[in-house]
């Protein structure tokens, strides 16, 4: 099968799907007679990715697989159509999420110690409801508090293939000089 045709098939599948698809599920479309291997897949995805540049959408690799999404630079226009979708989060909410994302696994007590304020139950509930965080274990200290970490859904939502792709934090000296 030609790469161009394969790229078209993959594009169709990703557009038809409501969720990201990984290589394994994309492979289900082909029988042995199609003679498609994973390497063909990757080169076709590359072709697809460069083909997307002519359009309003882009190919994005998330932790769950591949997804075709509308480019971020068009967001100002899109958000006018669905203002309810682009909700913003409070500074407290983002601080808690940032601590869990960057310092995972982390306990509630750790979060409270760093922020110097009690952790609101509401924030934890919203984070759980959005399935962005989950209990990943128990800390080996008295009371065995729950350790929290982020989920693949969190990575999907923030367009991150892996946790290592979290943007680096500005280091100490930088933060001191800003403002």
């Amino acid at each position, binding site marked *: 099968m030609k790469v161009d045709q394969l790229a078209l098939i993959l594009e*169709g599948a*990703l*557009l*038809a799907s*409501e969720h990201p698809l990984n290589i394994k599920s994309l492979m289900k479309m082909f029988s042995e007679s199609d003679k498609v291997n994973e390497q063909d897949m990757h080169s076709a995805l590359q072709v697809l990715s460069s083909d997307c540049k002519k359009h309003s*959408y882009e190919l*994005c690799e998330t932790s769950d697989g591949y*997804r*075709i*999404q*509308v*480019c*971020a630079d068009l*967001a100002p226009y*899109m*958000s006018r159509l*669905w203002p309810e*979708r*682009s*909700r*913003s*989060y409070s*500074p*407290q909410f*983002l*601080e808690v*999420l*940032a*601590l869990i*994302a*960057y310092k995972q696994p982390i306990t509630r007590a750790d979060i409270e110690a*760093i*922020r*110097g*304020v*009690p952790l609101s139950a509401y924030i934890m509930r919203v984070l759980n409801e959005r399935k962005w965080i989950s209990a990943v274990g128990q800390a080996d200290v008295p009371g065995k508090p729950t350790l929290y970490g982020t989920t693949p859904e969190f990575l*999907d*939502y*923030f*367009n*991150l293939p892996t946790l290592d792709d979290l*943007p680096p*934090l*500005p280091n*100490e000296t930088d*933060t*001191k000089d800003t*403002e």
Partner: protein
Amino acid sequence: MSKHLSDKAQSPAPIAVLHGQDIKTLPKNVYIPPSALKVLVTDFEGPLDLLLHFVRRANISILDLNLRELTEQYLAYVDMMKELQVEIASEYLVMAATLTEYKSRMLMPRQQVLEQDEEDPRTELARRLVEYEQTKAAAAVLDLIPRMDRDTHQAHAYRSVPKKDKALPEINMQQLFLAAKRVIKKIEQKEFHGVLVKRLSVPERIEIFMAQLRASKDFITFNKLCDKLNGRSGVVVSVVALTEMLKNRLIEVIQLTTYGEIRVRARPAPVKDTRS
């Protein structure tokens, strides 16, 4: 608003210009509704955020912070909140106590501090402030990452699935007919129809049988003879009639085998004559 108040203390710049004249002190009868201050308190995420604000305003590095000055500013802020009757979250009071403790430790002779191998309270506070500042930075960074629904949207093409259940409306039609049929049947069941009781007479039946038997002269099976036109009661009347005839020795009844055919014939007249 707090920023406003504390700025006034630091800089001698006029706080307002009224009728071309600089006003350097706040009028004493200015009324600040306590509800306005509530907004102010929530402006800071907590005591660390407030301290960070003081450090930043003084434009010094966290590592060079002046603990005495910082503590005084902080306590002044908490006092102001108390004065304005704003409810102070407990964590602000905890921090006030911590800062006071740090300050008093700083006042102790340095020699002793070193001997006890204690950490410089400034280091401890600086560590916490740096850590919190980093958390704030991390939150800001996280907020900038293009996220779904705000910055990117899952692209989705309409996928037309050939519908196999196109026959569904037809089935519905049939079901409709069947349903209509059922309804009609129900209505029919509700119609009244009179039942007439047909009076059957045994003597009448006997006469009919006698006529039949005499005409054939041979055996007639019970099956053939029996009145089948009047249903169950017809059969009952036939049996009663035959029994009556048998009693009066008008007929002969024979059965060749068990459960076999029952045959009936008229008794010859002479026998009847001798009897009577």
